[in-house]
């Protein structure tokens, strides 16, 4: 009697277990669609930024399907939620590549999520398109960096401040994580190479979501009142920006006195802020919604129609996905297959129009060429472009201003190496195997 009961319960549990396993292992093996993985957090702290990118991808895929799909097949988006949890990013990537067998993944926002995903993508030889500006110092055979490297955002912005606004003193303020750390390091080295004295550079780091800026802003105010023109270069991340700008405004620091140039504040962030206290502060991006080109107007119209809300905005990472997706489509068409190796070979050199009137090109180091724009924030949360680079700037994976990386070079075509040391003529570390 007892044994029977026990056996029965084992049976029940076992059945549910096999059910569990089978639901995890079985994957639809339909060959009539091309699957595209969308790996953006839809919950947790990063949902605020990443949800929009998920919608962008769905829109781009839908649009492509209307045009007849790719290689005669329809595209099928596979959306998962890594929930702003970094190990979960790795797990979901494995799920997308191994279970769902997607042909490309568009996703990630934070550096740490990319770092978490990277080993999995390399192991399973997948493709990842990463759409956010980042700190550089990386080049993987399986990853395409469609956002800006530091030389495509930070350095041109500093050039503008130095040459046009004659800024002499610099506050480098950032959130304490790798992107601001690297950017500020590169900038400090760059500024010093331009003859800025060490005491004219103030570096400050704050934790994520820092909300009490009173004394930091008052320090900045004091630092900026020495008679020399001062500017703040801000790599402050996400949620910390609103209280920061509010405090600046309230303490009476206007954009004419001490302009703030931000690398992480775009149209989307501004749409969640009362932009009044920010007017005149600046941001450096590769794209502004306000840029008046036919491609951009078409993109905006398409987006507003897709999302069904007239108040939504477009921003730089969305453009990066737009470029990345089109590059992937073109490369697949060129290769005639979605096979990773073929696409990796085909995509370098592919050129697609970007939304600011130029043509972006995939480089052998898996970064792309982009224009750099500097805009001033206007009251409606849009940017007024005040400066842009002459042509497109090529993304540089390894910074020339960092000790460890200035000798490194990435070239996946001729050298087949992401970190080739030009001095020792060797490919350091892991190679593509």
């Amino acid at each position, binding site marked *: 009697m007892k044994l029977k009961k*026990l056996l029965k*319960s*084992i049976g029940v*549990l*076992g059945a549910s*277990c096999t059910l*569990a*396993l*089978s*639901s*995890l*292992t079985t994957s639809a093996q339909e060959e009539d669609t091309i699957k595209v993985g969308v790996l953006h957090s*839809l*919950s947790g702290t990063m949902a605020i930024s990443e949800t929009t990118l998920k919608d962008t991808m769905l829109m781009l895929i839908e649009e492509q399907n209307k045009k007849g799909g790719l290689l005669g097949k329809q595209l099928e988006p596979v*959306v*998962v*939620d890594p*929930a702003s*949890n*970094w*190990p*979960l990013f*790795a*797990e*979901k990537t*494995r*799920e997308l590549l*191994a*279970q769902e067998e997607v042909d490309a993944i568009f996703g990630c926002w*934070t*550096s*740490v999520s990319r*770092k*978490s995903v*990277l*080993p*999995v993508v390399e*192991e399973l030889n997948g493709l990842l398109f990463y759409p956010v500006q980042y700190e550089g*110092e*990386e080049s993987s055979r399986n990853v395409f960096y469609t956002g800006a490297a530091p030389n495509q955002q930070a350095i041109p912005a500093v050039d503008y401040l130095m040459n046009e606004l004659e800024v002499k003193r610099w506050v480098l303020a950032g959130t*304490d*994580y*790798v992107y601001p*750390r690297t950017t500020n*390091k590169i900038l400090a080295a760059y500024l010093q190479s331009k003859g800025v004295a060490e005491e004219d550079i103030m570096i400050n*780091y704050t*934790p*994520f979501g820092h909300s009490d800026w009173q004394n930091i802003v008052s320090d900045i105010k004091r630092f900026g009142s020495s008679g020399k023109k001062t500017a703040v270069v801000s790599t402050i991340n996400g949620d910390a920006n609103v209280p920061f700008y509010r405090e600046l405004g309230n303490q009476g620091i206007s954009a004419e006195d001490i302009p703030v140039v931000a690398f992480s504040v775009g149209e989307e962030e501004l749409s969640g802020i009362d932009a009044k206290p920010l007017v005149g502060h600046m941001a450096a991006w590769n794209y502004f919604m306000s840029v008046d080109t036919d491609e951009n107007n078409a993109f905006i119209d398409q987006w507003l129609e897709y999302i069904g809300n007239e108040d939504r905005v477009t921003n730089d990472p969305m453009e990066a996905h737009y470029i990345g997706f089109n590059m992937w489509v073109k490369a697949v068409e060129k290769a005639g297959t979605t096979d990773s190796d073929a696409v990796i070979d085909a995509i370098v050199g592919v050129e697609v129009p970007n939304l600011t009137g130029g043509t972006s090109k995939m480089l052998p180091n898996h970064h792309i060429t982009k224009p750099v724009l500097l805009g001033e924030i206007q009251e409606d949360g849009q940017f007024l472009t005040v400066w842009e680079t002459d042509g497109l700037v090529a993304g540089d994976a390894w910074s020339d201003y*960092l*000790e*460890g*990386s200035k000798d*490194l070079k990435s070239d996946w075509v001729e050298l087949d190496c*992401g*970190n080739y*040391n030009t001095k020792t003529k*060797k490919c*350091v*570390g*892991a190679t593509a195997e």
Partner: protein
Amino acid sequence: MLTQRLLTSDKGGMLVLGLIALTCILVPILNLAVPESSPFHVSTFAVTLLGKFLCYALLALALDLIWGYAGILSLGHGAFFALGGYAMGMYLMRQIGDRGKYGDPLLPDFMVFLNWQELPWYWHGFDMFWFAALMIVLVPGILAWVFGWLAFRSRVTGVYFAIITQALTYALMLAFFRNEMGFGGNNGLTDFKDILGFSITADSTRIGLFLASGIALMLAYLACRYIVTSRAGKVIVSIRDAESRTRFSGYQVESYKLWLFVFSAVLAGIAGALYVPQVGIINPGEFSPLNSIELVVWVATGGRGTLYGAIVGAFSVNYGKTVFTTFYPEAWLFPLGLLFVLVTLVLPKGLVGLIGRFKKSKSTSKQEEQP
């Protein structure tokens, strides 16, 4: 006999242990020996997922031991888990050697990146596995001992203890986020290559880690059973039910609590150490107080105060999470949140209690039948 003492009158435990043993035997075979085309093949994805669940289960077991039996609610057990993980991560980082991006034979990439000239002192020794293994046990253990000694001695209990453990893990999280700490800041430790000379991405290594997690869980379960069925275990339960009375009966309440707490922290550390090579990253997010609260929820969902309940809880909640995040990526927090509310309201003894209640109602109805 020992096994008799441990497992008789623990049918649930036997069942759970049996199932774990079964998976430990079946999964490697189904993964390695069965061809991929076969419907019985277990993919590597499922293996890593199960391995992760096993680590979570071990962590849940550690918490259940102190919460379920000694009534010590720790809202900071994730801290011990993460510390164990970091110790393992440091070993794995050192194993990369000169295969990092910058090719530095000694310094991990993130240190080169931040222009560090030499290895900080606390990174020394982690190139040896035995040392790392020792640290996996010692670091969480010592922290728990110091913290517990301070807290139990001044009789910080209940809600207060819960809140200060939360403060502990929160403080550690903020500290580990700092890049100056030398633990890789927000990015944490990642891009591991080898463990004990085996490539970390090889299927056989994954199976090895999976087996190690399974065996660790089973051993830990038996050890916990040993403790709770021993004489000391009785004292511990009596501390939970009436602390002052136990103290007045002449027992050293503080030292019982302290050692149990330390043991639990060590288990959590081991769980973390097994977890890191399987998921491939450790970052300060693991210290987040929310993770620790979630851990409490696993235990409560499974059934607090029964060791196997913790395991059941860890598996079911995490399995639910995996399924929900895939099938309802937009709204998975609704069912998850609802689950927590319902479990506390309807199933105060957790999922395991559900079975118990079912049995009880049967037996009582039987008793009623007897005239």
